[in-house]
C-alpha cells in the first residue's frame, strides 16, 4: 500500500519536473514572438525603457494605422503582393507537381528511376548554382521587375514538392489502377478521376507548405523586383528596416503583421502540417 503510494508520488514529481522543464523551454521559444507582439504596440521610448516593461502601457493601437499610412512602407500593397505570390505558387505546385509525382509514384516506365534520381539531385542543388543564367535570361526577356520570373518555374514543377507528393502517390494501391485500366479508362482519366481524389489531403498539405515557403521567400524577390510597390512583405520589411533602423515600433508592427498570417494558417491546419512532415520521405 505505502509502496504503491510512494511510486505514484514519485511519478507525480517526475511529471511535474517534466512539465516544468518543457514549459521553460517553451517560454524560451515563445519569447521572441512575445517580444515582437508587445513591442509592436509600444512607443519607441517604451521599447527601450529601463526597467523593461512586460506589457505595453498604454496599448498603442494607433501603431497599426501608423504603419498602414506610411508611404515609405506600402504595407497593404505589399501584403496583397505576398498573398498573390504565395497563392499562385501554391496552386501551381499542386497542379504541376502532382503530374510528375503521379508518374514517379504510380506508373512504370523505362528511365523512370533515372529521372527520379535526377530530381533528387535537383532537390539538393544549391539555388545559386543555377540562378545566374536564369536571371540573365529573364533580364534579356525584359521581365525583371515583374512576378513572371518568380512564378513561371512552378508551372513545370518543383523538386521538393514532387519528392513529397510521390510518397503519397506511392500509397495508392496498384489494384485500383489496374481495375480502372481493365474497364478501359484512359490514363488521363485514371489520374484525374481516380487517383487525384485519393490524394486530396496530401495536395492540401503540399499547398500549405508551398504557401509558407513562398510567403517567407526572400532571395528571389529581392533580386528580381526593384519597385517598393511590387515587393512582397519579406523584402518590404527588410528594405524598411535597413533604411529606418531607429523606428523600432513600426518595424515590430511590420514584423508582427508579416508573421501573423502564417502563424494563424498553421494553427488552423497543424494536423495537416505534421502529417506532411512525417511523410517528407524518410521511408
Amino acid at each position: 500500500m505505502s509502496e504503491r503510494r510512494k511510486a505514484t508520488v514519485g511519478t507525480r514529481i517526475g511529471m511535474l519536473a517534466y512539465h516544468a522543464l518543457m514549459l521553460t523551454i517553451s517560454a524560451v521559444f515563445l519569447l521572441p514572438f512575445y517580444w515582437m507582439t508587445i513591442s509592436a504596440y509600444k512607443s519607441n521610448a517604451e521599447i527601450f525603457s529601463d526597467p523593461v516593461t512586460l506589457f505595453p502601457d498604454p496599448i498603442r493601437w494607433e501603431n497599426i494605422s501608423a504603419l498602414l499610412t506610411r508611404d515609405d512602407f506600402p504595407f497593404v500593397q505589399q501584403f496583397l503582393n505576398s498573398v498573390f505570390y504565395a497563392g499562385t505558387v501554391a496552386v501551381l505546385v499542386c497542379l504541376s507537381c502532382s503530374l510528375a509525382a503521379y508518374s514517379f509514384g504510380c506508373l512504370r516506365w523505362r528511365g523512370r528511376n533515372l529521372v527520379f534520381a535526377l530530381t533528387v539531385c535537383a532537390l539538393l542543388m544549391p539555388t545559386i548554382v543555377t540562378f545566374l543564367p536564369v536571371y540573365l535570361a529573364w533580364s534579356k526577356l525584359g521581365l525583371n521587375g515583374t512576378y513572371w520570373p518568380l512564378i513561371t518555374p512552378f508551372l513545370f514543377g518543383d523538386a521538393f514538392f514532387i519528392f513529397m507528393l510521390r510518397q503519397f502517390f506511392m500509397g495508392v494501391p496498384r489494384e485500383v489502377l489496374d481495375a480502372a485500366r481493365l474497364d478501359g479508362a484512359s490514363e488521363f482519366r485514371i489520374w484525374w478521376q481516380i487517383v487525384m481524389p485519393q490524394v486530396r489531403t496530401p495536395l492540401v498539405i503540399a499547398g500549405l507548405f508551398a504557401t509558407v515557403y513562398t510567403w517567407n521567400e526572400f532571395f528571389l524577390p529581392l533580386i528580381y523586383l526593384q519597385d517598393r510597390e511590387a515587393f512582397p512583405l519579406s523584402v518590404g520589411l527588410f528594405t524598411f528596416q535597413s533604411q529606418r533602423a531607429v523606428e523600432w515600433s513600426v518595424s515590430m508592427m511590420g514584423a508582427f503583421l508579416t508573421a501573423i498570417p502564417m502563424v494563424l494558417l498553421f494553427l488552423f491546419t497543424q494536423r495537416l502540417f505534421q502529417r506532411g512532415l512525417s511523410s517528407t520521405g524518410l521511408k
Partner: protein
Amino acid sequence: MPDTNPSAGAAPLPRRNGGAGRGEARAGVLFALPWMVGMTLFVAIPLILTFYIAQTKFQIIGAPKWVGMQNYEALWTDPAFWTSARNTLVFAVISVPLKLIIALGLALLLNRATALSSFYRTVFYLPFLMPAVAGSVVFMLLLTPNAGPVNLVLEALGFNPPDWLLDPNAALWTLIMLSLWPLGVETLVFLGGLQNIPKEVSEAADLDSPRGWHKLVWITLPLITPMVLFNLVIGIIYSFQIFTQAIVIGGTTGAPAESTLMYMVVLYRAAFRYFNVGLAAAMATVLFLVVLILTLLIFRTARSWVHYEGGER
C-alpha cells in the same frame, strides 16, 4: 532523402508484356514531361552555363568575354572570399551539429503522451513559420546592447553581457545561436522516427536493460539514423547558403568588421552590386563543388552508420 536508391519502395520496372504496359509507359513519360522540360530549362542548362560564365568577364551589359581561369585567380587573392568562406564554414560546422543534438533532445522529450504534448509540439514548430527577415529583426531588438531587454535583464542579474551582434568577436557566435531557434522541422522529423519505432522493440529493450542510456545509444539512435542523415544533409546544404539572416543583420559588408560576412552575401554583392557576374558565377561553381563533395562524402560514410529497417539495401 537518405534513400539514394530511388526505386526502393516503388513499383518494379515494367515488364515487357506489351498492351496495357505500353500504354502505362507512354502515360508515365507524358505525365513526367513538363517536369523533365522544367528540369532541363531551369536546372541542367543553367548549371552548364554557370560553369561557362565563370570563365568569362561579364558585366550583365554587353557580351561575355572569355578569360579562362582569371575569375578563379581573382577569387584566390580576394580577402572577402576567404573571410566569407571561413565564416560560412564556422557557421555550418557548429550550427548544424548543435541543431541536430538539440532537436534530438527535444524530440526525445516530446516522445511521450501527456495532456500538453500537442501544445509543446506547436510551440517548437512555430519559429519555423516566422519569416527569416522578421525573426532577425526581432533578435536585433532583443539583443540591442545597453538598452535591449536581454542585456538589461542580464545586467540587473549582475552579469557583464557582450554586445552580441555589434561585437565583432561575438557576432558570428550570436548568429549561430539565433540559427538554433527555428528547429521545429528537424525536431518533428526526429519525433516521427521515434514514433515509428515498434512498441515491441522498445519494450524488449526495457526488459533487457533497465538503464535509459543503454537503450538510447544501442536501440533508439540506430533506429533513427535515417532521420539523422536526412537532417544532416539538408542542414549542411542549407547552412552553406545562409543569406537572409546574414544580410539583415550584417548588411552587404558583414558588419561589424566583416564578422558576419557570409559566402552568399559576397556572391550577391559581386553579381548585383558590382555587376561582376563572371566572378559571382565562379563563386557559385566553387560552392557547387564543395556541397557536392560533402554530400557524396556523407552518403558514402552513411553506409556504415545508417541503419535501414529490413536490413541491407
